[in-house]
């Protein structure tokens, strides 16, 4: 319970458009994700899941409210600082893997580190370690089109958590995978989070959301419910202080 908080959203509101065309995509969302925690986000289409993920990762700016990543308040930073923070702290995993076809698995993973100014040798060492963590050390020199969908997604997870990156934001990472491969990817994501990361996972598949510690349900931009492992403890704490 006392693990460090990697991501905090406080009273986050995001309004798209204005006037009659105004769409409130997020309306007062509070959310905390700690190290070692994987949180799933579910909700009907249009409920604000992608907006939540984009705002959490600094790809989109809230209309009001604050987003804090590893202690840094995004709204207090300039665009350059935010971009650097994103590169250094946050990894993204998308449905369609998003690997660069002309680069090997290892190069895909080391690229963000090199962009961050890490010497090539060290970046490669980090990439190798990250690939080993997802069970792909033997595939390091393969190109994306030489890998299966599940393997490509594991490369994306390795890239998301390479070097000092500890926060992975995943939007439907199993969306393009069959159910056994999807499970394999969820196991890897779960293991990486357990080994020392935090994850926010958007999925519409309950079977995969079940790998998370908690599920946050969105409806029309607000959190309607949140269930998870820390709930019973909270209840116990309440009842013990109440008596």
């Amino acid at each position, binding site marked *: 319970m006392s693990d460090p908080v990697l991501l905090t959203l406080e009273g986050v509101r995001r309004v798209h458009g204005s006037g009659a065309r105004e769409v409130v995509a997020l309306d007062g969302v509070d959310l905390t994700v700690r190290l070692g925690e994987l949180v799933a986000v579910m909700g*009907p289409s249009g409920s604000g899941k992608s907006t939540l993920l984009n705002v959490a990762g600094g790809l989109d700016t809230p209309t009001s409210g604050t987003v804090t990543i590893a202690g840094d308040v995004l709204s207090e930073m300039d665009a350059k600082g935010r971009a650097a923070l994103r590169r250094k702290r946050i990894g993204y995993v998308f449905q369609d893997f998003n690997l660069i076809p002309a680069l090997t698995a290892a190069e895909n993973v080391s690229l963000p580190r090199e962009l961050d100014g890490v010497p090539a040798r060290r970046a490669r060492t980090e990439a190798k370690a990250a690939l080993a963590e997802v069970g792909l050390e033997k595939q390091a020199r393969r190109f994306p089109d030489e890998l299966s969908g599940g393997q490509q997604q594991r490369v994306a997870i390795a890239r998301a958590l390479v070097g000092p990156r500890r926060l992975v934001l995943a939007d439907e990472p199993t969306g393009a995978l069959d159910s*056994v491969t999807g499970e394999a990817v969820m196991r890897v994501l779960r293991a990486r989070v357990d080994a020392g990361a935090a994850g926010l996972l958007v999925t519409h598949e*309950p*079977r995969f959301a*079940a790998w998370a510690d908690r599920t946050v349900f969105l409806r029309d931009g607000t959190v*309607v*419910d949140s269930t998870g492992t820390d709930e019973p403890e909270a209840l116990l704490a309440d009842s013990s202080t109440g008596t």
Partner: protein
Amino acid sequence: MSVKHGLLALLAEEPMGVYRLRKEFEARTGGSWPVNIGQVYSTMQRLERDGLVAKASQQDEDVELYEPTESGRAEAAAWWRTPVARGEVGRDELVIKLALAVSAVGVDVRDIVQAQRSETMRAMRDFTRLKSQVPAPGEPISSPELAWSLVLDHHTFTAEAEVRWLDHIEASVARAVLTQSRTETTDRDEAEVPR
């Protein structure tokens, strides 16, 4: 369990006699749950004995009307609030509950759907935790482990089907353009009335 609470929830909307109760119950569960009049009658007697219903203060001239007591109302409210536990036999209770909720007064189907979805997700997380302890697909696995893993998959897929059904209910209710919100039944439709 479910019939008792379903009847109690209906009475919380307005006092009714046994015949009308039976009609309401059957109509509002889509006719999927037939109950005979004796069952409704004995359920009322038990509810009355347990202090959950009483003879209504406003009586109809031909029929005996029942209404929930204060604790009966609390019991009905608690029933709406509490998700049906997964381990419970007779998941039909969930079907009855959601069917009734669609037309129940003062009950938001979406809240019931959400409470149930959370409960089912909780169960799925338990299955998944057990699943994470058996080798991953493609890793060496013993046949008892594989069998256990497939049993867990069964539980997971069944629970997932339920979550999808709940999603479907929520979407259907949100989109529905309801014509007639309630069934039109009265106790006077019935000729024979026990007194």
